[in-house]
């Protein structure tokens, strides 16, 4: 479910990086505040643990399919939401750098989709609420499965939203959504079960690890701030969304038409216009942004097909340059 660079626009990628950096900075300040330097090596090894554990595929009896751990929820359970979020963010950066799982520009999207929701939505509002009734096998399983389902559903929804907002494909919002959500329901259940098995094993063998954490994390999460920042994120995304929906007469609008019955979202105010202007200013190539995409596309198709020859010639020259460099290096021994 890692978001890749090819699917997003610089605007969506950039705003997600800004949003998640703010969340990372906030979490870092929180950790510094409750300064516990024992946590630093624990975060480091837990990151490596989750990274390695994600690679084991567990077979699901009777189905022939398999699933693996995502880790976001597990990290929050053992490290608390702030340290858990930072640890997940570093895992995602390593995956993007070393394995090209999710791109560098899409990094912010991935931190939001795979890290933010489990640490700041599912863990505090679902997992902790259920576990506060006491540790039992039943509670651990209900809490883990529900939390994993919710964070994966939110993550999948974000993937759809980020893809549609970027406008690099013509996938209609609802079709993509109807495809993504059910798949991630199944993935969420498996992730929840694996997490629950690990937590209940640890609770059975060394309950003090979880009980200590319970005391440690109590009352430290500022619900009000989380709620405010979540509303802010929603408003910001909504701002981009509404500006986008009215300037791009396709895909998203179609789904808005279906769901609300009116073709455009009511956001034609000053805020909306401001974002429109801002986009024109910051866009690298104003002529090529998606505003004109539709009008240009028919003409462009013509040039694209006749361009196959030109493209091959360009690619040929590029490869020749590469070959020449190699030859030059070999003959001159540099």
């Amino acid at each position, binding site marked *: 479910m890692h978001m890749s660079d090819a699917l997003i*626009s610089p605007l969506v990628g950039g705003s997600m990086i800004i949003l998640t950096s703010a969340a990372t900075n906030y979490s870092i300040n929180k950790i510094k505040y409750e300064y516990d330097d024992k946590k630093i090596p624990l975060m480091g090894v*837990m990151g490596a643990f989750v990274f390695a554990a994600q690679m084991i595929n567990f077979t699901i009896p009777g189905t022939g399919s398999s699933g693996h751990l995502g880790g976001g929820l597990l990290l929050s359970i053992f490290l608390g939401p702030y340290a858990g979020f930072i640890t997940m963010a570093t895992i995602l950066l390593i995956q993007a750098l070393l394995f090209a799982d999710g791109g560098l520009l899409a990094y912010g999207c991935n931190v939001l989709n795979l890290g933010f929701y489990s640490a700041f939505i599912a863990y505090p509002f679902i997992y902790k609420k259920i576990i506060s009734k006491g540790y039992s096998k039943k509670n651990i399983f209900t809490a883990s499965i529900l939390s994993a389902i919710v964070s994966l559903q939110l993550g999948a929804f974000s993937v759809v939203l980020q893809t549609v907002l970027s406008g690099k494909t013509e996938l209609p919002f609802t079709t993509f959504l109807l495809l993504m959500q059910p798949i991630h329901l199944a993935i969420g259940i498996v992730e929840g079960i694996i997490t629950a098995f690990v937590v209940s094993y640890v609770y059975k063998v060394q309950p003090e690890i979880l009980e200590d954490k319970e005391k440690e994390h109590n009352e430290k999460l500022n619900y009000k701030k989380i709620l405010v920042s979540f509303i802010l994120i929603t408003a910001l995304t909504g701002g981009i969304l509404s500006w986008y929906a009215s300037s791009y007469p396709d895909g998203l609008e179609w789904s808005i038409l279906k769901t609300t019955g009116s073709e455009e979202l009511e956001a034609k105010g000053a805020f909306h216009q401001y974002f429109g202007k801002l986009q024109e200013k910051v866009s690298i190539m104003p002529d090529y942004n998606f505003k004109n995409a539709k009008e240009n596309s028919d003409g462009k198709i013509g040039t694209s097909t006749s361009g196959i020859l030109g493209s091959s010639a360009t690619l040929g020259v590029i490869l020749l340059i590469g070959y020449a460099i190699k030859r030059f290096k070999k003959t001159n021994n540099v």
Partner: protein
Amino acid sequence: MSKLNYSLRQIRFLDECSEGKSLIHRINPIVKILVTLIYIICVVSLEGYEVNRLIPFFLYPVIIISLSDIPIAPLLKRTVISLPFILGIGFLNLLIERNLHGLLIFLSLLIKSILTVLSSLLLIATTGMDNIAKGLLALKVPKIFVLQLMMTYKYILIFTEELITSVNAYELRSSEGGISLKFAGNILGRFFLRVYDRAKNIYNSMILRGFNGEFNIGKKISFANKDIIFLILWIIYFVLIMFFDVVKFFELILGVVT
């Protein structure tokens, strides 16, 4: 299991690559991070149907590969492995848009993926994690984040090896293929407890060696003329190919020749 082995090989491969001494390896990591990011932003800001405009972007990976002597086969293999998700999306789009536009979007998603994946792999292969960390610190990424990144990176190798041993032991004793979901707790839970104990030992040894929350990365990175030239030349090239249709130019030349 194969994934665990594969990841180990991938990390070691990139680590070995980063020890090269080529011109590209010696470029300042901050500059390389910036060039890679600018490159990716330029590539993804092109629209779905502009396949032609993407072709000139191949010059960047081609030049970096030929100058840095990075073996090309493993890089391409990793790039291919990362493609299925994007191909799936492109194919889905093609099902909805069964026309030339859909095909162009499919092609552009494919090319964009190859370009962005190659450029990020080349960044790490020519720079190495230690230098990336230095670059990130210089770019004002918080210290705790970078420290956490490096610790995770260092322990991934150790833990992956340990996990391979556990999985091997399980598979040798099991009659069926794969590990059943119901043993997730036993394998990962046990593994977690080992890791948890290890964190305590690591903390103790860090304290004994004078850890005070600071993160020392050794020699500072410096800028040389070649770094500035590298940065400026690539920016000029990227801006040029964003505004100037190179493919059209070659088409015209071909037209004149024939």
